[in-house]
C-alpha cells in the first residue's frame, strides 16, 4: 500500500502549535492544583462537589490534546496508510462522552438531593491556627479555581482559531467559562451562609446542567468530524470557504475545463478529492496533475494530501460512472 505523505505545519503555525502545547501543559498543572484545593475545601456542599467534578473533567481535554499531538505527527505507514490523525478525534470523543455521562449523573444527584430537602451541614476547621467557618474556605477555593482557567482559556482561544483546532477551541471555551462555575458555587455557599439551604442544591444543579450542555455540544462536534462532515469554521461552525477557494483555483488552471471538490476535515486539516474535467488540447496530463497536487496546498495551509481525479463528466462521479461502464 502507498501510505500518505506526512503532514507538516508551515513554520509560523509550527511555532503557534508549540506555544499551544505549552499552554496545555500549564493548564494541566494549574488544574491539578485546583483539583487538590477544591477537594480539601469541598466538605458537605453539593455545589462544591459539582464544581470539583467539573474541574477533574476539565483535565481530560488537555490530556487528550497532548496525547493526540504525539500521534498526529506520526508518519503514516502500511499499517495506517491514512495516518494517525483520527486518534485526536477519538480522544476527544472520549472526553466529550465523559462530560456528558458525568454531567448527567451530577444533575440527577443534585436534583434528587434538592427534592429530598437535604440541609447541608457546614462547620469549622482549623486553618493556620484559626477556627474558620468552612464556608469561607470554600469561597476562597472557588475564587482560586476561576483565575487560572479563565486566563489560560483566553490565551488559548486565538491559538485554536489560528491552528484551526476544534478540540483546543472547545477546551479553551470550557476553561473560559469556569468563571460561571465559580460564581454559581459562590452563590450556593453564600446562600447557605444566609440560611438558604436550597441555594447549594440549585447551584449544583446549574453547574451540572452546564457540564451536560458542554458534553452535548462537544459530542455533536466530534461525531460530525468522525462522520467526515463538510469543513466548517472553528468557532461558529459555518461552512468554511476553503471549498470554494479550492474549486476556484482549480478552475483557473489552464488545463482544467471544470472542477468539483470533495473535502472533509480530519482533525485540523482538510483532505479529499478533486474531480477535474481536463481541457481539450496538447499537454502532459500527468505532469500537470502532479504540479497541481503540489501547488494546491498553497491555497490554504490546512489542505493536505489532495487526490486529483480526472473524469469525463462532473455530474456522474464514482459509483454512477462505474455502473454505466458495466
Amino acid at each position, binding site marked *: 500500500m502507498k501510505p500518505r505523505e506526512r503532514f507538516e505545519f508551515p513554520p509560523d503555525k509550527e511555532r503557534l502549535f508549540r506555544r499551544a502545547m505549552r499552554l496545555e501543559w500549564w493548564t494541566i498543572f494549574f488544574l491539578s492544583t485546583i483539583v487538590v484545593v477544591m477537594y480539601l475545601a469541598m466538605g458537605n456542599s453539593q455545589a462544591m462537589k459539582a464544581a470539583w467534578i467539573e474541574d477533574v473533567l476539565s483535565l481530560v481535554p488537555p490530556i487528550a490534546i497532548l496525547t493526540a499531538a504525539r500521534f498526529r505527527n506520526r508518519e503514516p505507514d502500511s499499517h495506517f496508510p491514512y495516518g494517525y490523525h483520527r486518534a485526536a478525534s477519538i480522544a476527544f470523543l472520549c472526553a466529550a462522552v465523559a462530560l456528558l455521562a458525568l454531567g448527567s449523573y451530577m444533575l440527577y444527584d443534585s436534583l434528587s438531593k434538592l427534592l429530598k430537602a*437535604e*440541609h*447541608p*451541614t*457546614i*462547620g*469549622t*476547621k482549623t486553618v493556620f491556627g484559626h*477556627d474558620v*467557618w468552612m*464556608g469561607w474556605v470554600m*469561597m476562597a477555593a472557588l475564587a482560586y479555581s476561576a483565575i487560572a482557567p479563565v486566563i489560560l482559556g483566553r490565551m488559548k482561544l486565538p491559538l485554536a482559531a489560528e491552528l484551526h483546532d476544534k478540540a483546543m477551541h472547545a477546551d479553551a471555551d470550557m476553561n473560559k467559562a469556569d*468563571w460561571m462555575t465559580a*460564581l454559581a458555587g*459562590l*452563590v450556593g455557599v*453564600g446562600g*447557605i*451562609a*444566609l*440560611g*438558604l*439551604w436550597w441555594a447549594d442544591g440549585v447551584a449544583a444543579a446549574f453547574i451540572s446542567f452546564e457540564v451536560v450542555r458542554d458534553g452535548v455540544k462537544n459530542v455533536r462536534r466530534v461525531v460530525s468530524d468522525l462522520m467526515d462532515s463538510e469543513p466548517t469554521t472553528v468557532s461558529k461552525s459555518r461552512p468554511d470557504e476553503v471549498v470554494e477557494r479550492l474549486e476556484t483555483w482549480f478552475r483557473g488552471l489552464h488545463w482544467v475545463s471544470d472542477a468539483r471538490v470533495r473535502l472533509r476535515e480530519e482533525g485540523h486539516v482538510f483532505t479529499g478529492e478533486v474531480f477535474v474535467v481536463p481541457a481539450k488540447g496538447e499537454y502532459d496530463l500527468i505532469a500537470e496533475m502532479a504540479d497541481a497536487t503540489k501547488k494546491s496546498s498553497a491555497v490554504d495551509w490546512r489542505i493536505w494530501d489532495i487526490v486529483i481525479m480526472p473524469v469525463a463528466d462532473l455530474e456522474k462521479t464514482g459509483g454512477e460512472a462505474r455502473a454505466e461502464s458495466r
Partner: protein
Amino acid sequence: MTAVSLLALVAMLSIPSCGPIPKDPEKTTERILAGTMRVGVSENPPWIRRNGEEADGIEADLIRSLAQTMSARVEWVWGIPEDHYHGLEKFEIDLVAGGLTAETPWKARVGMTRPWVEVPLTVGVPPGHAEIETIDGSTVGWSSPPHAPALLRERGAVPVRVDPLRSHGGPVLAPAWWVEGNGWTDAGLILDHEKHVMFVPPGENRWLVRVERFLLEHEAETWQKLREGATR
C-alpha cells in the same frame, strides 16, 4: 460578564452585614437563646451519667455551661442515640451527646461536630511491670469498648475481660486517660482512636459553629477531668 461579576462581588461583600453568619435555616440558635435547649442523651460514663431525669458527667457539665452562656435552660431527653438522631432530623432535638464518636453512618444525615477530643485506645502496664514491645501471644485485659477483644485478637493477643480493670496484673487495653489517671505506664501501642463528637440538626450551621467552638475551648479541661475520674 464583568457587570454580573461585579454585582455578585458586591452581593457577597454585603453578606456579613446581614447579622451573624452563617445562619440557621430552622432558627435553632435563636430559639435556644433565653429559651430551652433540648438535649438527647444516653448513659455512657464518664461522659453522661443518669441522675433521675437529670444528667451528670463530663459532657453534661459542658452542656450546662454552654446553656448558661446562652441564658437557656436544659431539657434532658433520655433515650438511645438512634432515636435522638431521628429527633435531630425532624428538628425536635437540638443537641445529642453520650460519649458518641465520629464512627457512625448517621453523620451523612445529621450534623456532626468536628472531633473535640481524640482518645487513643492504648496498651498500659501496671507500675513496676516490665516494658513490653508487643502484645503478640500475651493475655491482655479489657473492660470497654465492646470491640476491644477483636482489636486485641488482630494483634495476636488473648483478650480477657476484667472488672475492675485495675485489678489485672498484666497489660490492659484502655483509653489513654485511664492509663495516665491510674498511674500506669503507656506502652505506646495504640490500637484505635476514639474521636468524640456531638450531634446537631442538619444544616443548622450557626448552632454547629457555636457548639464546635465551645467544645474545642474546653478540650484541655476535658482531658484533666478524664484523668481525675480514672480512679473511680
